[in-house]
């Protein structure tokens, strides 16, 4: 399988604190790939290394065939237009309205006429399920769920092939979280996106993720589909999926089938 994102033997360290020691994984085209692990297991750190915010101490990363740490100017430009990142808290620019936030990448990276950009922005707003009136609001005036949707619309502004999501459903109520999961799958199916998401929402893992990796002990302790991972005897996996919440979810899943 050719990998859209490939990480090999990655080593990350903060001072004396070794976060990753030989992490390897591969995300295939069109997959929704989950990164899972307890708090402090380095999920978000791994994501930040892959998108080029945090320099790793060793190993190799390839995203869409490029190494995000060794790019010339044109390649960096190209890469940033072809991935979208949804940060955990949305990270919308608070001085801009929702419409300006979404339109910003289009205005900066293309020379499309302004009224066309405005139309694209409105299409994106509908696409992520925001009401039309949200366009003129500032981020401080939005609810948590709306912030996530607006941030997703901004991540999708340039029609990327690759979407990074950092805990997309955290802070949403179960109904909102489920709707957001559904939206992500729908967008993947229709736009052919590849999605990499950091999550510890078991519901997301059970419902929309195709394959995922579980981080623990500074390594990937298991990688694969849900059944493959569940079959791994590693204690971290046991804790996750055979604790009370995991058992409930797994029972529900068997019941559903």
């Amino acid at each position, binding site marked *: 399988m050719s990998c859209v994102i490939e990480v090999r033997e990655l080593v990350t360290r903060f001072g004396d604190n070794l976060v990753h020691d030989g992490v390897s994984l591969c995300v295939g085209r069109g997959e929704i790939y989950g990164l899972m692990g307890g708090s402090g297991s380095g999920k978000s750190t791994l994501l930040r290394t892959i998108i080029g915010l945090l320099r790793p101490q060793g190993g190799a990363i390839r995203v*869409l*065939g*490029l190494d995000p740490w060794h790019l010339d100017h044109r390649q960096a430009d190209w890469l940033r237009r072809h991935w979208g990142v949804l940060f955990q808290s949305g990270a919308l620019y*608070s001085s801009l309205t929702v419409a300006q936030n979404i339109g910003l990448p*289009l205005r900066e990276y*293309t020379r*499309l006429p302004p009224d066309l950009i405005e139309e694209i922005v409105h299409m994106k707003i509908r696409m992520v399920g925001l009401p039309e009136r949200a366009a003129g609001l500032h981020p*401080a005036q939005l609810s948590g769920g709306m912030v996530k949707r607006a941030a997703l619309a901004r991540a999708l502004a*340039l029609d990327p092939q690759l979407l990074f999501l950092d805990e997309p459903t955290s802070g949403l109520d179960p109904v909102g979280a489920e709707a957001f999961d559904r939206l992500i799958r729908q967008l993947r199916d229709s736009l052919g996106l590849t999605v990499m998401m950091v999550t510890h929402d078991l519901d997301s893992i059970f419902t929309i993720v195709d394959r995922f990796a579980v981080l623990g002990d500074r390594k990937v302790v298991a990688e694969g589909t849900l059944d493959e991972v569940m079959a791994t005897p590693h204690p971290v996996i046991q804790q996750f999926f055979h604790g009370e919440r995991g058992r409930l979810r797994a029972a529900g899943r068997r019941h559903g089938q």
Partner: protein
Amino acid sequence: METFHAEHGQPATLRLERPAEGVLRLVAGGNWRAESLDAVARLLNRSIRAWRNLRVEWDFSGIEAIDPAGMMLYRHSQRRLQARGCRVEVIAANDAWRTMHDLLDPWTPSEVGTGRPTWHRLLTPLAALGRSTVNGWRDLVAFLAFLGESTLVFLRGLAHPLRFRWDSLTRVIEDAGLRALPIITLTAFLIGVVIAYQGAVQLRRFGANLFIVDMIGISVTRELAPLITAIVVAGRTGSAFTAELGVMKITEEIDAMRVMGFDPMHFLVVPRILALMIALPLLIFFADLVGIFGGMVVAHLHLGLSWSEFLHRLQSAVAVRHFWIGIFKGPFFAWLIAMVGCFRGLQVARNTESIGRYTTISVVNSIFLVIACDALFSVILTELDL
């Protein structure tokens, strides 16, 4: 998989054909993707203006790829053409185009509001004027309420001196007073030097060298030291108050205090106001010393006045009331600066941008109020012959 090296394919292209009178055929080709649309978008933007009442036929069978931005360009052009009386038709399209078209259909607005009319835009300055007037009025009302509340809390606190936050009082005095000494030293010394230098040139012409002492002694103690110190403190401490309280507002610390029954007025505002009212007169006293010393240095070097002559003259020429008037202004200036700083800090809304805005407003307001208050003092004290 699309990767960087494979990607430098064809940018989007558009060929115009005129197969018959009144018929325009647009043959699309290349990559209709966001990153390669610029040329075609500009071509369409320019050309559509000249087309009217035509039959426009799109041919999308030759495109290599299309993404949502490409589809939106088509949609956008179609709408503009229709508005100009053209009939638009897609005569050929490949699967990629059709898939994208159907995919975006539910999300594409059939009609987009065409901006606001011109008269509306012309009225914007008037609307802004009205809004800022109303906001100014509301600010004033809120400030008066704040003033009343903080005074009440202060008076109630007097009844229970043990419950007063002595630790935050001393911390603010240290921050606003002690740590401000270096910058106050520098500014006050330079002010003294500048005044003496300018005065020396004029006075020497009249041979009135000795009167430099009167000039420095009165102007520094009565006006310059209080004013300069207050302005430095407004920039240094007033802004810090606004930013501190603003951040606490954003991180919901203020809300947490309220629900736990800790009145922010009592815990945050009153100690700051009181602390600054104590610290500023002390700073003014210090600025008096340094400012006069600055003047003394210039008088010595430039006018040849000896140190002892200067001090002797200072004692006899400068009435002590000038000094007291300067010190007396301190608590008033401090009260204004701290009030405005805390008031603006508590006004910060729940976004990061507003911290910067309110900090700026706070400094501008307090400097203005300090100068206005100083002017008021000048008038009143002169009328009273002090």
